[in-house]
């Protein structure tokens, strides 16, 4: 009889420990490419170095490719480009990109202060803490 009580209780307690885990993803940078011609050179440079590795048409990172593909960006129409800018600004302001999991394996992928402000300025955003 005691066992009947034990099972549901153990089940409930077990639920408390339930957590979603994510697999870390290891990335490699593909070679350089040519980005949108109307993009300022300094922005292009940062994107090339810090974003394009995952966000390109050949990317093995399916999620990154689906969310933003720089190769498709330049040929997409204005409304789509602006929408992408809006979303870029959002993830940058929240500090969600590059992803933490990615930086664990590749700390040099982190955006420097300067690079971050370059991207934010381009995408119309403000820096989180300062000014």
């Amino acid at each position, binding site marked *: *009889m005691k066992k*009947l*009580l034990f099972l*549901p209780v153990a089940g*409930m307690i077990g639920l408390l420990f339930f957590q979603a885990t994510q697999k870390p993803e290891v990335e490699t940078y593909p070679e350089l490419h040519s980005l949108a011609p109307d993009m300022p050179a300094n922005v292009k440079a940062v994107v090339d170095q810090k974003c394009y590795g995952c966000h390109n048409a050949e990317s093995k990172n399916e999620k990154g490719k689906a969310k933003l593909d720089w190769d498709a960006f330049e040929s997409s*129409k*204005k*409304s*789509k480009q*602006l*929408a*992408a*800018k*809006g*979303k870029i*600004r*959002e993830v940058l302001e929240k500090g969600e990109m590059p992803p933490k999991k990615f930086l664990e394996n590749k700390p040099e992928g982190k955006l420097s202060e300067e690079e971050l402000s370059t991207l934010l300025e381009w*995408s*119309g955003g403000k820096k989180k803490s300062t000014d």
Partner: protein
Amino acid sequence: MKRWHYLLGIPVVLILVLQLVPNELPTVENNNPGDLIGSGIVSDEVANLLKTACYDCHSNEPSYPWYAHVAPSSWLVAKDVREARQELNFSNWEDYDMLDQLGKLDDIYSEVEEGKMPLGIYTIMHPSAKLSEEQKQAIVSWAEEAMDIIAESEDE
């Protein structure tokens, strides 16, 4: 005590205990002057679709079903609505700036097209919110047109 006393009693007691866990459903506010519907960018047809398929979570005016008030389902409802509003709240549409509006429309486009939204668990409980292919198409085309309009109207 007979065996069936436990079989019946234990789950009942557990459910009752669960009700004591604090849980706050996101508040309902029916007066939303900055709502998408009323901003002039959405037709009545699409507005109705959005109301039935999206507004329970992505607006300040959900109509909570009875199980939204009973744990453990209330936890899921509260979490989903809270997160949904954070991601996109049609009631606060006018507060978003142009780039945000475009970003959200772009997400609406792909989420609906790929059938990721409305969530499966929501449409099981709300079969009327399940979008037919034509309805999906209506929302997707609206989203794209609205993006073009917004992108052109506020030239920077």
